[in-house]
């Protein structure tokens, strides 16, 4: 159970989050929705402390993570994997080294800095890559891969962390429809097979409804909706997205049409 209590964050006086309270049950797949600038990203970044909250408290299984420092903070980050919109790999390093970053918290400093990876860690990273159908790309530079492949490398990096939570910040916003499905499906597989809690920021309502068991709607840094996808009515969507609502609803219909269309013509994909 991840509990977020009265969380607030200000960037130079401007509030990005205010009074956010939510409890995330273990093994749930939570989608955070809302228009850009609603504070979705800041919320996720507060959880693994890439951003330090200005007020409030985050606790995981009763243990406060808001005040963690040093090794304890790195352990916490290691136990909650993060997937970024822009993948955040090191482009000039090979794929395997990028995946091994997920193990770096468990290795001794000097061999790690010299890239003298222990065999069992290499094996673990290769297995994760294999699970995402990327094993044959292990020695390629990350930057030579396509966006979809890079995001799967990032998922493999998260996977070797053995995380209890995965935080995914707009994981598919830079991807085409085909890769969107591959990446979202692999997140769902991790969630189902390993029972990992997933908290995922999504701009697309269509995806949020399809993959998430629970949705949190944010507007101007506050939680304005918290419930199952079925509870999300058009009225709430209009409130969440304001003037963009029509776009989102139209897009949703268009996406639905596209999904049906591609299902009818699998060879076109």
């Amino acid at each position, binding site marked *: 159970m991840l509990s977020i209590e009265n969380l607030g964050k200000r960037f130079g006086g401007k509030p990005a989050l205010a009074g956010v309270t939510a409890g995330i049950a273990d093994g749930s797949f939570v989608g955070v929705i809302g228009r850009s600038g609603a504070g979705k990203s800041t919320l996720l970044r507060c959880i*693994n402390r*890439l951003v330090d909250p200005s007020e409030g408290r985050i606790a995981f299984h009763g243990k406060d993570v808001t005040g963690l420092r040093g090794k304890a903070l*790195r*352990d916490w*980050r*290691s*136990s909650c*994997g*993060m997937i*970024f919109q*822009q*993948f*955040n*790999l*090191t*482009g*000039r*390093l090979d794929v395997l*080294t*990028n995946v091994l*970053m*997920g193990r*770096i*918290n468990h290795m001794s*400093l000097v061999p*790690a*800095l010299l890239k003298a990876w222990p065999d069992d860690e290499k094996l673990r990273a290769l297995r994760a890559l294999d699970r995402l159908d990327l094993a044959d790309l292990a020695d390629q*530079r990350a*930057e*030579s891969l396509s966006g979809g492949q890079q995001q799967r490398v*990032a998922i493999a*990096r*998260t996977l070797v*962390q053995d995380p209890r939570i995965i935080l995914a910040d707009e994981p598919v916003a830079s991807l085409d429809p085909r890769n969107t499905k591959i990446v979202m499906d692999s997140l769902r597989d991790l969630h189902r097979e390993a029972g990992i809690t997933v908290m995922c920021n999504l701009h697309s309502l269509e995806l949020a409804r399809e993959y998430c068991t629970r949705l949190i709607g944010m507007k101007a840094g506050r939680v304005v909706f918290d419930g199952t996808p079925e509870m999300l009515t058009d009225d709430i969507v209009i409130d969440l997205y304001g003037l963009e609502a029509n776009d989102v609803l139209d897009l949703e219909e268009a996406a639905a049409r596209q999904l049906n269309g591609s299902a009818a013509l699998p060879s076109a994909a």
Partner: protein
Amino acid sequence: MANASPKTAHAAPAWGGWLLTLGAIAVLVFGLWHLGFSLTKFLVGLGSLGKFVVLMFPPDWGDNASLWRYIKALAETVAIALLGTTLAAVIAFPLSLIAARNTTVSQILRFFARRGFDTLRGVDTLVWALIWVNVVGLGPFAGVFAIAISDIGSFGKLFSEAIEASDKRPVEGVIASGGSRLHAIRFGILPQVAPVLISQYLYYFESNTRSATIIGIVGAGGIGLELSEMIRTLEWQKVAFLIIMILITVSVIDRLSTQLRTAIAGSKATPN
């Protein structure tokens, strides 16, 4: 990342340009007068320059013993440049991490590192050579120090700017995976900046081969010492030979380092 800077349209009135031109001409004329410029002196001088050129032909190295000495002196010059540049880069790299906004450990240390670089850089290599000749005595040792000290300043500034310009996303990737700051620098920043740093190092080595010749003249070892000696004793054929030796060496190093640098830059030019 599209980072379009706004174009600054400069609409100065037409007479502003004329005024500026007139002002520039006035400054130039005053400068020439103040420095005692004289066309006759220049023309007469041009004549004797021609005489020197005639005296330089054919270039000649004298006996075999002095040829050997020149080759050793030239090798010493290249060694001074190589050691000085390497020493500077090795010392400057950790300091540049302190001086870069995104990797510094404290704002106060960052301030001192940056001002320190400015100070070292502000004093020319030649001046450092004069200082070191007095501190450690005549010879190549002083030359190595002169180049190293002044280039710590230049490298520190260039390296820290490259570090500041690096993409922060890989760093976030490493940190979010549970990595420490050291891990983030090693695996997030270093792979990005290494090609830039190596390229700057090679460029400085190339340019320091020329500097090492000059500082030899003030006694900091190498071919410069021989060159100034030959000019003093009016051995113009030997001077010509030494100059040709230096030119060939500098151009060979220039070619090699350009090739290496384009090879490194080329390997960076991958899509995405």
